[in-house]
């Protein structure tokens, strides 16, 4: 009986350990996040081995002048100004390093059409430090993003 109890406990621990461990540490970035200004919500997905974040919700989804859904009207490439903002990948090409950091990516600001080099650091499971910078990290700004969950 004692042996059976030990066996079952061991089994439970092993299953639990595998259940909570992500198949890839980088996948902890997956989910829906909100930038500090609360004006958008971004869903992080994986394409291949890289991570991308697309806008899935906008506080003001429509252009005030036309009433139509906003598009990427500040894109430096005039041919791409018709891409809907909702669905636009503003975080691109992040590669998981280690120590809860993702780098080699870019962040796009649809307000002015600028793309910045970017690194992401997960300070806790529900908080990201997203640092956009120009050239070197010193010339940049960190924004704190919080993970979102469906309200119960």
């Amino acid at each position, binding site marked *: 009986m004692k042996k059976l109890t030990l066996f079952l406990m061991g089994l439970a621990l092993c299953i639990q350990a595998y259940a909570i461990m992500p198949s890839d540490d980088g996948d902890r970035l997956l989910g829906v996040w909100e930038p500090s200004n609360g004006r958008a919500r971004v869903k992080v*997905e994986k*394409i*291949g*081995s*890289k991570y*991308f974040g*697309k806008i*899935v919700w906008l506080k003001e989804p429509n252009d005030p002048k036309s009433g139509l859904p906003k*598009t990427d009207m500040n894109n430096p*490439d005039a*041919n*791409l100004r*018709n*891409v*809907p903002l*909702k*669905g*636009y*990948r503003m975080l*691109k*090409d992040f*590669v998981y390093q280690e120590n809860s950091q993702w780098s*080699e990516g*870019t962040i796009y600001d649809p307000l002015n059409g600028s793309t910045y080099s970017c690194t992401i650091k997960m300070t806790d499971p529900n908080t990201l430090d997203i640092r956009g910078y120009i050239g070197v990290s010193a010339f940049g700004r960190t924004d704190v993003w919080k993970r979102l969950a469906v309200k119960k």
Partner: protein
Amino acid sequence: MNLRKITFGSLWGLLMLLINGCQPESQTHTATMESAFEWSGPLYEGSNPAQALIKVDLASLLGNPVQEGMKITKVQLKSAELSGDSASDLNGIGSLVLSIASDDPSLTMKELAVLNPVTSSSGQAILKPSPEAEVSDFFAQKEFYLVVDAGLSADRDQNLRLTGKFQWEIQYR
């Protein structure tokens, strides 16, 4: 002094001409590629991505045997068409965006073509490519991803399957 400058300038110009002249001439080829994109339902209102992994096979792309030292110098998307199995497949799709991505950390994802709004009733959507998007670096890899973002105007229970037909203008030497 002026004469010396003129002489050196002329020699330099001649050298550049010789170097460029010795390069093999650049050739252009239009390659057609087909790929399937599948979305598994239920799908939700908003942007839904589907991707296809494209293996780069230069011989079949160029229609010629690949010679040693052959190098792709420029690739642009000339046309992009997405069509469903039936005319109603595009119903409920408000926008289509085609992008290219790679696992290579040095290559950043690029948007290639967009159609917004999608008004086709024939089941065929012809996207407008961006002439500024140059993707030869992706074709230098062994493989890359094509990603289609379908912007749905309402939730959709059924699966969706679109076939993409893409024409690439490839310059090589």
